[in-house]
């Protein structure tokens, strides 16, 4: 008898299909496919229409997320788990997606000029979000890998969406290094499977609790997993791609990558390391803590010498990944580490998107750069911004001060919460390093304000072109600014929500 036919004699174990559990993901997938068809069959559809459809898809996913809010279970034989991390990350990611949609809708088109970015960016945004949301919910290493690939492939294409040479270069670098890190991750998954006999996080957690098991293979697997994740969240020493990619890609995509990839990446980082591998904390904590130290200090130190705002924001995002790693390092033994990291991600997402929105606004002020380096984001372009565009400068100040961690803006509470979790976990030395890094980071955030507020504009102010009408960007900026200030003044509700994310279901 044919071996395949033999297999059919056994009753096939079918996983129960729990549609409700993955309803938001399904909504995003359907919306993405619909948009792809709209783009293909209705080439004249304006960006407004596409953005509207994208927002509708996001709204549907958000409604389904709310519907699932109190659902706590492991679905699909442990492939997907619905817990606090999942729903918190879903909510944050969908909000980030909405802001990114507004930024993309604005694009860099001005009155009477054709837009450079193709309409496919909207479905790609939805597919990327699908991958991210799934990544945050994944509780099986294979699902982790698939979700990671969905989001990475979409982002590779989005990074190169315009014909600017810088964007093409960024996409290529991102793709090569991303594929490289995926290979690490896959190898790590394979080794973990070899060591524990499962890719399911719950079963891996059980296996790590067994003291008689051979640890070598598992530790090697954990190390490779760590490398893969550290790549994705752009932690030192795997950060090399970040500055080039953020600087080269179109600003809306860079903002989306900076905010959303971090949220999804750290959600899965927490679930795998603090959840499934929590039993091995003594083994991986030194590694993660070391990476945190390097990430905070190298990111902050290199940001100081940047002369391009997008590049500086890339280094700043590296150093913020370091603070988040402090949360991850604490998370295995202290539940506050999980909620602190989740809250940090929430506040960071809005601060950094806001900063990129200001970049997008300012890049519209001058004539487009013809030397193909990228968009206008040099610090020189910000000289005297406060006198020319007080609102944009004011928002820039809010975001920069929030990123510095000045009270009572949202970034302050986030930093505080992570420090608190670090001290609680007995990592006071790490918190002291974080404080030093915060002081270094004050230098470069302030430098932006120095340029925008304290320096006089150069050249002929008449040569500056009007930014044109920017309704979508205006709304996005207003929302990001409002959230940054409002979370700072009344963080209670969102902290409580983050607290409910502390319990990790496999």
């Amino acid at each position, binding site marked *: 008898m044919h071996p*395949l*036919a033999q*297999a*059919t004699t056994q*009753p*096939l174990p*079918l996983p129960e299909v729990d549609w409700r559990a993955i309803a938001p993901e399904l909504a995003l997938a359907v919306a993405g*496919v619909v948009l*792809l*068809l709209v*783009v*293909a*069959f209705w080439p004249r559809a304006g960006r407004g229409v596409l953005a509207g459809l994208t927002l509708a898809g996001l709204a549907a996913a958000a409604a389904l997320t709310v519907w699932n809010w109190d659902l706590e279970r492991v679905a699909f034989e442990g492939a997907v788990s619905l817990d606090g991390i999942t729903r918190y990350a879903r909510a944050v990611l969908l909000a980030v997606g909405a802001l990114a949609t507004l930024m993309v809708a604005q694009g860099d088109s001005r009155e009477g000029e054709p837009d450079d970015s193709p309409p496919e960016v909207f479905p790609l945004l939805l597919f990327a979000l699908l991958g991210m949301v799934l990544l945050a919910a994944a509780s099986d290493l294979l699902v982790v890998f698939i979700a990671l690939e969905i989001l990475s492939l979409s982002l590779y294409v989005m990074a190169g969406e315009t014909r600017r040479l810088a964007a093409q270069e960024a996409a290529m670098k991102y793709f090569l290094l991303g594929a490289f890190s995926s290979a690490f991750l896959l190898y790590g998954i394979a080794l973990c499977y070899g060591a524990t006999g499962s890719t399911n996080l719950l079963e891996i957690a059980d296996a790590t609790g067994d*003291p008689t098991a*051979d*640890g*070598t293979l598992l*530790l*090697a697997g954990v190390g490779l997993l760590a490398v893969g994740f550290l790549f994705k969240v752009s932690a030192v020493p795997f950060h090399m791609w970040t500055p080039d990619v953020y600087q080269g890609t179109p600003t809306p995509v860079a903002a989306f990558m900076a905010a959303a990839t971090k949220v999804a990446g750290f959600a899965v980082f927490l679930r795998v390391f603090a959840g499934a591998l929590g039993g091995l904390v*003594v*083994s991986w904590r030194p590694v993660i803590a070391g990476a945190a130290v390097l990430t905070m200090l190298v990111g902050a130190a290199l940001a100081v010498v940047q002369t391009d705002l997008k590049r500086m924001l890339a280094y700043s995002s590296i150093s913020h990944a370091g603070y988040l790693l402090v949360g991850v390092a604490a998370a295995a033994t202290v539940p506050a580490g999980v909620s602190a990291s989740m809250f940090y991600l929430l506040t960071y997402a809005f601060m950094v998107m806001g900063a990129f929105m200001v970049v997008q606004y300012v890049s519209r002020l001058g004539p487009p750069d013809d030397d193909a380096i990228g968009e206008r984001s040099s610090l020189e372009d910000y000289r005297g911004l406060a006198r020319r565009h007080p609102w944009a400068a004011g928002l820039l100040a809010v975001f920069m001060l929030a990123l510095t961690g000045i009270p009572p803006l949202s970034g302050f509470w986030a930093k505080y919460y992570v420090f608190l979790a670090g001290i609680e976990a007995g990592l006071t030395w790490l918190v002291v390093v974080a404080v030093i890094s915060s002081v270094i980071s004050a230098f470069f955030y302030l430098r932006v304000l120095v340029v925008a507020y304290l320096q006089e504009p150069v050249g002929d102010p008449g040569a500056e072109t009007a930014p044109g009408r920017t309704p979508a960007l205006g709304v996005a900026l207003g929302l990001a600014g409002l959230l940054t200030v409002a979370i700072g003044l009344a963080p209670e509700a969102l902290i409580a929500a983050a607290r409910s994310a502390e319990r990790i279901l496999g």
Partner: protein
Amino acid sequence: MTTYFQAYGTFAALLVLSIAFVAVAFGANRLLRPNRPTPGKLTTYESGMDPVGTTWSQTQIRYYVFAFLFVIFDVESVFLFPWALVFADIGVAAFWEMVVFIGVLAIGLLYAFKKGVLRWA
């Protein structure tokens, strides 16, 4: 604590051993082999044929898209065979799930068609 270091110890020993293995193998090879370089030994290996042209050659980019589409549907058939074997046991649900699966791929093909990638011009 001993198991903690033992676990790393095995790993470290393996690392040292593997580095030593490669070093010894290549080192011994270098010591034992005769060294007679000829120009013929430096040419590119092309199954015994004389190499033609430079190593930097360009290919028609359209092949890429076709190869891509071929791979997608080739992989699809890999899923179809086992599905066909168990189809009867599962019932109608299996049919609809495969419809969705092929449907998504078909939408991709449709998109490619509308974008004009299938036209060889």
